[in-house]
């Protein structure tokens, strides 16, 4: 009988990634509900260095797996997590829905016949086993999935969906033998984001941000002027930066900047993808302007305007 919850932590460049503590947060709640033991694993060249930080309250055991390199490799992670599952027989394995797990979670699940769902933000257990909730159709609906006949379920958990555990406990620590892997890829190095523009999205208190709703490059200028006239920093969603209409330094979101100091964020023509929201959903006052009344950005905004950004923009300028 498989039992227990196994959390796989993440680190990069020698730092534990904060999402690891969120996964523990999700797992502690499930441990309280089900009584299953909770284990946290770390895979790395010198995994011991992360152990102290992972001795979090609620964790019963910290597991280490030694790897030949410290940087992420999908085949080393896949084999290590498989070895961990075989060693401890958990019924539930939680990974972050992160760039690294995008590279190995699905191969792990598919090769072993595990139950599997990604980007989940709700987890429960009922008579049929584990049940997970994720979103669909551009975040407009929720989807509840289960895993009939699967004794192990692997879920990737949405960053930001659970509160991190910040207090410490006294779990035991064990090493799980490293599986033999011959990786077919090789980490060459990290590169930091390119600079470019001198704009400071993380430091800006007031951001007007434009998304694909601007339609074409020629329209960007009028929103630059709008941002200037209202005293805001101009930000954007990813398609605007990808198209080269604004520099990457202005992109808000998971692969761009976090609007860390922002108190007022006006999202114009932005649908509200998870990755965009990762950079701004914490902002106290969000105003969303969108022609689509069902746009998911309205679920996190304080104020919503169903309308055309060009109409609203032009009218707004009359007040400044």
């Amino acid at each position: 009988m498989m039992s227990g919850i196994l959390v796989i932590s993440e680190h990069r460049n020698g730092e534990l990634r904060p999402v690891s503590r969120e996964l523990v947060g999700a797992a502690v709640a499930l441990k309280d509900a089900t009584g299953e033991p909770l284990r946290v694993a770390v895979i790395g060249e010198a995994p011991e260095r992360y152990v102290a930080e992972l001795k979090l309250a609620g964790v019963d055991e910290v597991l280490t797996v030694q790897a030949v390199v410290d940087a992420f490799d999908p085949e080393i992670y896949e084999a290590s997590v498989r070895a961990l599952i075989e060693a401890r027989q958990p019924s539930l394995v939680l990974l972050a829905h992160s760039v690294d797990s995008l590279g190995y979670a699905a191969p792990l699940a598919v090769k072993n016949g595990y139950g599997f769902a990604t980007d989940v933000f709700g987890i429960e257990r009922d008579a049929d086993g584990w049940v997970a909730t994720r979103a669909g159709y551009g975040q407009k609906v929720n989807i509840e999935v289960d895993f009939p006949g699967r004794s192990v379920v692997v879920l990737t958990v949405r960053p930001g969906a659970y509160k991190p555990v910040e207090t410490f406990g006294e779990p035991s620590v064990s090493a799980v033998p490293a599986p033999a892997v011959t990786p077919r890829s090789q980490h060459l190095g990290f590169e930091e984001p390119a600079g470019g523009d001198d704009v400071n999205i993380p430091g800006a208190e007031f951001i007007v941000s434009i998304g694909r709703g601007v339609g074409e490059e020629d329209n960007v200028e009028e929103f630059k002027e709008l941002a200037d006239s209202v005293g805001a920093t101009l930000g954007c969603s990813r398609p605007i930066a990808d198209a080269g209409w604004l520099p990457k330094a202005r992109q808000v979101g998971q692969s761009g900047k976090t609007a860390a100091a922002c108190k007022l964020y006006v999202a114009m023509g932005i649908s509200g993808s998870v990755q965009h929201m990762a950079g701004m959903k914490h902002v106290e006052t969000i105003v969303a302007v969108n022609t689509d009344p069902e746009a998911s950005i309205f679920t996190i905004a304080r104020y919503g305007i169903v309308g055309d950004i060009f109409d609203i923009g032009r009218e707004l300028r009359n007040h400044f």
Partner: protein
Amino acid sequence: MKILVPIKQVATLDEDFEFREDGRDIDPDFLIHDLNEWDNYTLEEAMRLKEGPGGEGIEVVVATVGPESADEELRKCLAKGADRALRVWSDALEDADAIGVARVLAALARRESPDLIFAGVQATDHACGATGMALAGLLDLPHAAVVAALDYTPGSNSATVRRELEGGSYASVRIDCPAVLTLQLGINTPRYASLRGIKQAAQRPIEVLDAEALGVTADALGAAGSASRVRRMYVPEKGRAQMIEGTPAEQAARLAQIIKEFGGAA
């Protein structure tokens, strides 16, 4: 050499949509179809290699697992220069999740033996981010996800890729080929189809196969080959947005007030 580009026909919701009778999906009458945004980039990357140095012999094959309506997306790819298009379908695939789809793509890939496979990082509808890498697992090929730059010389037995990480940094990785990569938005600038291309694509053949003919057995097909099962689909409770009603002038006046209050408080 051959590059396989699996593409997905995605669906967005019509303004007033209804659920299917069993409550496990949307009534198909209320779905609007399109080509997954990421697949414009994967096709472009394949075309970029084909049109680049040493690419003369490259065949670009686009493939989808989907019903007849998905032919439209394959034709968009043919119009942009793909050499060949394939579609696989069986009714049982209605109930397939990303893993179930990957099993069919794996059977197809075994038949086609491509040198590279480019899938999208995720799809705009359900954002699973699983199909491409599950395919790599099934084929036991080297793989890398969220690739934002690719350096590959046709015929070479390795490639250098730049994985895009959180916060906009990157990791460079050398990877053995054949390989499966999921490509990220912005890796290139996708082309538009020419009018002539669109006209010609309408006449081009699409090879249609059923999954069984590819050797996908009943125990791996559709629900049986999936790693999850949808129980129900529902509209989540709306968040806290307070809607500002009125004419655009009235809405903008209220927004101006919010901005000015913020300015006063700052």
